């Protein structure tokens, strides 16, 4: 009996180890590669062999790359702030007020978040050209709203719906206006949900590629994903893998730290959209 249990435990341990290794190894390997230069790049090593910072120096001294990090931070922050601003009031109405067509409206909003981005690309291209914001951060801020806004509204609505009726009643009896109820009753309670949705929306804006690729034309206007996708050598055989890996590590480490720091909140936010919704 104990021997059987031991074998079972060992098997379980192996599975757990496999899950962890498969999850972590590619990033670990990118870090190892980022510290290699010259011919050592072309030797496969499973453990760190060198600690050469040359790739990092090259990446961080490249003006365009640093600029693209700045662009991405600006675009993602403004997009998220804008989406939050519109979503808080809207989800109060969707979660707490009964009116006709509410579920249809919710389903429509969910539908928009599932839009294939390519379906609006042609129309957005025209709109962005028309507004004269092509090749500026505003092109991305505008277009990212298509996925950050529905997502934020959806998650905040599910969150607000679960709050008990009583918290509002006192305020209503006191004659508080709806915007006062939002500002003084709900907003303080919403902070945890706002942090979660804000973070998730920020990550999806940070990672977006199709719009950023299409609506920018010059190297100074690129966002991080486009900048990394476009890193290439003078020929196919000269792909600067060390530099690419260093750039990848630079933009991914803050993201991973954020995700690990807010682990519980993120898991809660991810599943709120799915399971409860």
């Amino acid at each position, binding site marked *: 009996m104990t021997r059987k249990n031991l074998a079972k435990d060992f098997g379980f341990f192996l599975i757990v180890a496999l899950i962890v290794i498969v999850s972590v190894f590619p990033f670990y390997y990118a870090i190892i590669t980022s510290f290699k230069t010259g011919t050592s790049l072309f030797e496969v090593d499973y453990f760190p062999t060198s600690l050469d910072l040359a790739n990092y120096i090259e990446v961080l001294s490249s003006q365009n790359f640093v600029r693209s990090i700045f662009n991405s931070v600006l675009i993602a922050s403004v997009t998220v702030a804008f989406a939050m601003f519109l979503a808080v009031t809207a989800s109060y*109405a969707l979660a707490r007020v009964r009116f006709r067509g509410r579920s249809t409206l919710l389903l429509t909003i969910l539908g928009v978040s599932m839009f294939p981005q390519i379906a609006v690309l042609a129309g957005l291209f*025209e709109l962005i050209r028309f507004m004269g914001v092509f090749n500026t951060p505003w092109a991305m801020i505008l277009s990212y709203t298509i996925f950050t806004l529905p997502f934020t509204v959806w998650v905040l609505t599910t969150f607000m719906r679960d709050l008990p009726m009583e918290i509002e009643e006192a305020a209503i009896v006191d004659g508080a206006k709806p915007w006062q109820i939002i500002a003084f009753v709900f907003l303080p309670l919403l902070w945890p949900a706002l942090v979660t949705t804000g973070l998730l929306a920020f990550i999806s804006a940070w990672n977006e590629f199709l719009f950023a690729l299409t609506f920018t034309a010059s190297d100074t206007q690129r966002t991080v994903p486009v900048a990394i996708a476009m890193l290439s050598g003078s020929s196919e055989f000269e792909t600067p893998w060390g530099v690419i890996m260093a750039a*990848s590590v630079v933009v991914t480490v803050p*993201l991973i730290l954020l995700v690990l720091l807010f682990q519980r909140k993120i898991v809660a936010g991810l599943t709120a959209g799915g399971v409860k919704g």
Partner: protein
Amino acid sequence: MTARDSLSPGLSLSKRRARSAMWFLTPMLAALFFVAAWPLLRTIYFSFTDTTLTNLYTGKWVGFDNYLSFRQLSSGRVIWRGTLADMSWWNAVWNTVRFTALSVSIEAVLGIGVALVLHKEFVGRGLVRAAILIPWAIPTIVSARMWGWMLNDQFGIINDILLNVGLISAPIAWTASTETAMTAVLIVDVWKTTPFMALLCLAGLQMIPKDIYEAAKIDGVHPLKVFFKITLPLMRPALMVAIIFRALDALRVFDLVYVLTPNSKATKTMSVIARENLIDFDKFSYGAAQSTLLFAIIAVFVAAYVWIGRVDLGGGSK
């Protein structure tokens, strides 16, 4: 006259609330109309014109020509034109469907597996959950490049591992060869998105009451039977929602394919080919027709899935 009546005479409290709700919703709906509905309508409109990228406003109405049209030559031969007669479009459709079906089913199976592991109590469970969040946190473009390096034909570590283990006898050009390009894309996609699937499944598992399992244990039901008769049916709602989210992502896949296997006929998806025509080849209206078709396909898919699977997407909103 009471205080309440003086605020807005003749309206009940709930009517008043409904009216202010309308005001709260308007900015959000206006924004969504502006960035989603309007561009979509314009894309559909463009698909019926001969608009070009450089001249967005001079396009003429051409009916269904971008979709399908035919012309009879004097010799009597009929020439078909348009997306629906374009082999490269059907190739992209096939690639997308194949990619979606394979990636989502592999991810569902692995996701359930990982969720079952994480549902058990063991030392270091928090660390494992943190570890599986890493692939999810890494931007798709970064994972495409990381794996592009690992799958490199000459210097890639994947070939090195497989050669050392003896599974292959010669290095494989994973991303470049037409036979393996799709496998390469699938590997990266599964690696990147299984965590999402696993977390949603885990949330579904955690909602199953524990006493059902205790009852099954007392009755001595075989674990496999417990899984198929209790666990799977009870986590089905969560799984169905996870699958549709993933399937919709897979149907519109662009970035991973574009960066990992550029210009490979074996992986080009509908989104990739539509953007190529829209922007790179200056066949703007032709690309718009392909975008419209992709939208239609996804809409039909969602409707069918919700209807057949009876998925409650708006659950609790009644």
